[in-house]
């Protein structure tokens, strides 16, 4: 290429093209699901049980099941995750142990989701004899989202200025008092962001719940944490691959409800983060 200016133009054009190749399909996917799914959405679809072998009726048990699972996961993962983040940001020294903890978090985040499913099956369903139940599924999902909560909470804690801690300690507060009454309240929106992102992730995952909780079809709502439950992502999998002749509309409608749920949580997280950044006093 003799002319470097022309080479630059060509190169930049291809870089732009590559970007379009990623972003345009994302937009298309969302638009297609909204367009084809919204005709299915009505009050009955959201509040009725599936009927006629899941070819008609609604998806209420799947929605409720997913809500239970996600709440269970967060009840388990939030305290452990936040305290773990407190340890890393406030107590940990720069030593070998800390290095190993960070590596473990990275690995926990990288474990394939279906391996979490196996683990949940072996530990909670078989070893602890919880059976395929909301409890087993929630705990499995909880461990899966732990790295998300630890990482985001740690960032939030570390962004609280060091001087806050020094002032609090100089006024006679103990280390834990400084953390619980000064550092944590100032990091709360960051922790909330991480929690909601974790919720979104837990709501959308299928593989970890396949053998730990998910029921193919249940005509009633689960009444105890030791019961199986339907879940939205698994229900979408079932009606799009396991059950023949399901109306396209119902498949798209289910995909839309799941997508809307997950994207809504992400949107809330983004808004909290944005407001927090604007409000930051330091």
């Amino acid at each position, binding site marked *: 290429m003799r002319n*470097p*200016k022309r080479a630059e133009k060509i*190169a*930049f054009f*291809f*870089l*732009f093209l*590559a*970007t379009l*190749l*990623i*972003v345009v*399909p*994302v937009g298309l996917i*969302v638009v*297609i699901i909204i367009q084809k799914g919204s005709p299915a959405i009505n009050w009955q679809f959201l509040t009725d049980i599936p009927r006629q072998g899941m070819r008609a009726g609604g998806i209420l048990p799947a929605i409720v099941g997913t809500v239970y699972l996600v709440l269970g996961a967060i009840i388990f993962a939030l305290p*452990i995750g936040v*305290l*773990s983040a*407190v*340890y890393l940001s406030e107590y*940990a020294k720069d030593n070998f142990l800390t290095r190993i*903890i960070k590596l*473990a*978090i*990275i*690995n926990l985040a*990288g*474990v*394939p*989701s*279906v*391996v979490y*499913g*196996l*683990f949940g099956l*072996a*530990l909670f369903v*078989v070893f602890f004899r919880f059976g395929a139940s909301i409890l087993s599924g929630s705990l499995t999902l909880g461990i899966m989202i*732990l*790295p998300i909560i630890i990482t985001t909470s740690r960032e939030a804690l570390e962004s609280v200025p060091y001087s806050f801690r020094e002032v609090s300690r100089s006024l006679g507060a*103990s280390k*834990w008092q400084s953390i619980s009454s000064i550092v944590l309240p100032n990091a709360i929106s960051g922790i909330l962001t991480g929690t909601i992102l974790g919720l*979104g992730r837990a709501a*959308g*995952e*299928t593989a970890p719940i*396949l*053998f730990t909780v998910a029921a193919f079809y249940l005509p009633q709502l689960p009444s105890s944490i030791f019961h199986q439950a339907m879940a939205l*992502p698994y229900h*979408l*999998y079932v009606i*799009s*691959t396991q059950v023949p002749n399901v109306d396209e509309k119902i498949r798209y409608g289910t*995909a839309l409800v*799941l*997508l809307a749920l997950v*994207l809504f949580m*992400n949107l809330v997280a*983004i808004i909290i983060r944005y407001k927090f950044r604007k409000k930051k006093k330091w």
Partner: protein
Amino acid sequence: MRKFREFFIEKLILICGLAAIFFVVLIFLFLLKEGLSVFGTVSPLKFLLGKSWYPISEPAQLGILPLILGSLLVTLGAAAISIPIGVACAVYIAEIAPLKIKEVLKSGIELLAAIPSVVLGFIGMVTLVPWVKSMFHLPTGLTALSGSIMLAFMAMPTIVSIAEDALYSVPKSYKEGALALGATHWQAIYRVILPAASSGILAAVMLGIGRVIGETMAVMMITGNAAVIPQSILVPIRTLTATIAAEMGEAVVGSEHYFALFAVGIVLFVMSFAINVTADLFLHKKK
């Protein structure tokens, strides 16, 4: 009393701090506990290199080579598509896009990362699969190629965001030096900035591949699930992850099949562990 409370809380925090290590070890131990039993009936070498996977025939044939090759094939295909496009997109976002467009692009990619894999699998089934079928005049569109395209797409958020971080953290003085010497912006990018960010980009690529190998639902829905050694990219295949997801529901707890699926889980765990540790080494080299 206060001292005692403080002591108790600090110990609790330490225990939670160690939770990540505890769970990684626990996952590995439970995979080993259930998975190693299979090697009582089939040798590890025969398990890894056996050419047929018929877990419920009598006697069961437990060779996972077709599954490993299936995983490798879709992963290579996905890597071939996602690495050039992903890195190019990262360069565009980090270096070229105006600030406002940059924010839009970044949220678009975050959006992609948020879409559940079962939704992407469903969309792949209704759009990509028929397209591949008619494009290549195949009897079925459920092929390794469809899986590769979908997985390439799913690896993008990882590759783009980590590579963009790496490009962004190259000191501005490098670029300014190159421009001052008369280089065009593009020359500065590919002669100076890309080489300076290479270890971070390598880490991005590895983590993207890790994501691809571990992906389950989408790949199970669109690759056809045929556990045979693939002869081309246009035939149905089955991956390690899809095998576990598809068969564990029917496997009887404590049966040979059940143990074999856990052994497949060990293989996956070890793979993802190796990838993550190596990628982390590359990321730390940068600093």
